[in-house]
């Protein structure tokens, strides 16, 4: 009897223990890779494919307005290191098409960028409604770089109709037609143009020109002189479209047999529109030539001045005179400083009492308030930048007031741009609060891996006319300033497509998100009082296929 009781107790105990065991472990049998709440696949990994030490944002600006162009533009990279330019998918690529006025590329991380081994490339841009432009760059350190290309709009050109005079040269038998074209860049003292571009045609060349019928216009010098004397005021009209609104910049210039970065200023670009003689258009120079001279009357005269040509990734100064053998000519007149630039110059540290990323544009002026170049600083407070290719002189750094989240920043005076460390304190604008955005992006066909991009983005109040505020995501995280109770848009550019994410800075007293959107957005209050906004966003663009995700 006792044995039977023990056996019953044992079996009951075993059943009891098994029941406890299995009921307590019920969750163990659930698939841990399925979300406990939704049953959807969880993402085990969050990846950042930013293997790059150097990223280059290329901004295409209208030289007249300073705004980014919206026209379709073809961007071509050339030059020594152009083959090291890659997309964020690691594809070597030299040609890009954009309608957004900007592209962002990276540098092959296997390429070392140092002062002794700079990264050199050129960018040529063909944009609808703008003149083709080329510019060269030299990077001497890794980091986030922004380069600006200022394009002159065709419609912003000034069309000039230039009449000519007959002049007799030095008592010989040569006759010269002289056309004067005053430049638009004025002297600082008396508002007179500092440069001129003139044209001349010798009498012998004139006799070679053909008109609309394909025949020479004048059969003899006497016929030409008779025509001129009959109506000297309107005998010849040379039509030129020109543009003079370029800002100074740093470009690569061929000097003394070498190519070096130099302070470079396009004073004027122009192109031939038409040439009429006695009301008849000239259609063919027929072996004749038009000579153009440029002169500089400002004081002091630039180290180098003249016509320039962009060849083999650098500018070559052609001199003060060029000869055109074809009618469809164009030209560029430049001034260049021979002053050697320092490879690396002053260090500038941006500090703030807020946790935020920033993108600040700045114009660099010399002590006479002449614009030398422009630059961009993009990072997270506090961050130190060492400026490259700097002139060895005192400068004034004027920060553009184009970031609504910051108060205007006082100009920074630097006694020598080639040395020294300087600090810039940036204050938030009134009403702005600190937020942290954490972005996880997914591809539609792979929810198990999330992407936390290191990428440039832009941020602004949805529908507002205020400028986009540049932000810099690192591993999907960006600290920024925003106004409370606003709807914002965050956008990132992948080649030619913007990927938009909407969010609102509307929270309850505990920091919980109050404004559901298309993307999955949640929020929480951080220990330091800021609010973290978590965004899970599914890409709808070609980035997934490009990246092979």
């Amino acid at each position, binding site marked *: 009897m006792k*044995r039977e009781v*023990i*056996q019953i*107790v*044992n*079996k009951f*105990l*075993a059943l009891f*223990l*098994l029941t406890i*065991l*299995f009921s*307590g*472990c*019920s*969750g*163990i*049998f*659930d698939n*841990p*890779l399925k*979300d*406990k709440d939704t049953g959807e696949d*969880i*993402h*085990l*990994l*969050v*990846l*950042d*494919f930013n*293997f790059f030490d150097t990223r280059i944002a290329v901004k295409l600006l209208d030289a007249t307005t300073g705004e980014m162009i919206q026209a379709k533009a073809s961007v071509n990279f050339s030059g020594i290191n152009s083959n090291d330019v*890659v*997309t964020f*998918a*690691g*594809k*070597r690529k030299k040609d890009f098409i954009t309608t957004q006025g900007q592209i962002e590329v990276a540098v*092959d*991380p*296997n390429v070392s960028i140092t002062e002794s081994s700079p990264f050199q490339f050129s960018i040529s841009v063909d944009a609808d409604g703008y003149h083709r432009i080329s510019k060269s760059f030299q990077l001497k350190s890794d980091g986030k770089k922004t380069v600006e290309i200022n394009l002159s709009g065709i419609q912003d050109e000034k069309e000039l109709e230039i009449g000519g005079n007959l002049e007799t040269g030095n008592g010989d038998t040569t006759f010269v037609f002289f056309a004067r074209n005053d430049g638009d860049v004025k002297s600082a003292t008396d508002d007179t143009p500092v440069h001129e571009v003139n044209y001349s045609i010798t009498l012998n060349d004139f006799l070679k020109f053909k008109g609309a019928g394909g025949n020479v216009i004048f059969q003899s010098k006497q016929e030409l002189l008779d025509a001129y004397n009959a109506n000297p005021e309107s005998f010849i009209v040379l039509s030129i479209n020109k543009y003079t609104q370029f800002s100074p910049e740093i470009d690569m210039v061929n000097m003394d047999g070498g190519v070096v970065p130099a302070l470079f200023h396009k004073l004027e670009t122009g192109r031939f529109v038409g040439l009429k003689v006695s009301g008849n258009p000239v259609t063919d120079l027929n072996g004749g030539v038009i000579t153009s001279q440029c002169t500089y009357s400002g004081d002091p005269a630039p180290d180098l001045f003249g016509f320039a040509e962009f060849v083999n990734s650098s500018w070559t100064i052609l001199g003060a005179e060029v000869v055109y053998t074809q009618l469809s000519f164009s030209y560029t007149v430049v001034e260049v400083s021979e002053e050697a630039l320092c490879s690396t110059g002053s260090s500038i540290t941006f500090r703030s009492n807020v946790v935020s990323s920033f993108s600040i544009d700045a114009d660099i002026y010399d002590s006479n308030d002449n614009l030398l170049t422009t630059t961009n600083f993009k990072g997270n407070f506090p961050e130190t930048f060492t400026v490259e290719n700097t002139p060895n002189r005192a400068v004034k750094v004027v920060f553009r007031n184009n970031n609504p989240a910051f108060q205007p920043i006082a100009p920074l005076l630097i006694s020598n741009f080639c040395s020294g460390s300087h600090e810039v304190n940036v204050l938030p604008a009134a009403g702005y609060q600190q937020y*942290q955005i*954490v972005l*996880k992006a997914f591809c539609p066909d792979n929810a198990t891996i*999330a992407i*936390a991009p290191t990428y440039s983005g832009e941020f602004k109040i949805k529908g507002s006319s205020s400028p986009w505020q540049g932000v810099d995501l690192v*591993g*999907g*995280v960006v600290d920024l300033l925003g106004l409370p109770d606003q709807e914002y848009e965050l956008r990132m550019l992948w080649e030619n497509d913007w990927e938009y994410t909407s969010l609102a800075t509307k929270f309850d007293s505990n920091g919980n998100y109050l404004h559901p959107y298309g993307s999955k957005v949640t929020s929480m209050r951080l220990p330091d009082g800021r609010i*973290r906004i*978590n965004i899970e966003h599914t890409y709808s663009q070609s980035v997934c296929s490009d990246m092979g995700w």
Partner: protein
Amino acid sequence: MRNWWFSIGLLFFIGIFFDAQAGEISENDGSGLADYSGFYVGGQATTNGLGFNLKYIFNKRLTLKAGVESMRLSHSFLLEEDDMSYDAKVNYKTGGMFLLADFFYTRALYLSGGVMMNDFQPYMTGRAAESLEYGDINIPASKVGDFRITIEPELKYSPYGGLGIRTFMGKNKMVTWNFETGIYYMGPPNISIEATGLLSPTADPAHGQKEILEKQFSAYNLYPVVKLALSLRIF
């Protein structure tokens, strides 16, 4: 996993049934446990490691035992995911110091309970094995990065419950043999992630991946063990 738990359960059944029979036989002997009380020292092999133990048999109902056990296993392998490959290594580290009391409700069958200061801390490390072919370029392995994932139980002191069989062997019954199954409650796992390069956001607290994984694996809070122990009476 489900089959494994059933196996554990089955072991309980087999053990209980077997021990019930053993208990009958022992009782038929008419021998008394009081004769075997004393201090024992021995060793054990368990799924929580190898170790040694000290135990004191007070009487036929109660035995106290303490000991330490440890296990460290490692396995290196090539972890390949898409185009990436990591030299990975799993280090399985477990064990601990325990203090348990066995309550005998038959001569051989007992319930065991107590606590263990556990040393459960498995981790996995990986380092990019080679450069990554990424588009048209090769990303150096140093940039692809490395990772370390460590799992630690929430409880450092884990309660334990088990069921076991003990038999005495030898002419003078100076040797005991124990077979025991049980479970440590360790609490939900705490996961720590360290990573550089490609996986660095996985380790970034801002993304909360640690919390996500801890929530998903929170059900794994028990550590089942099977123990075999042999002890010799010292005095």
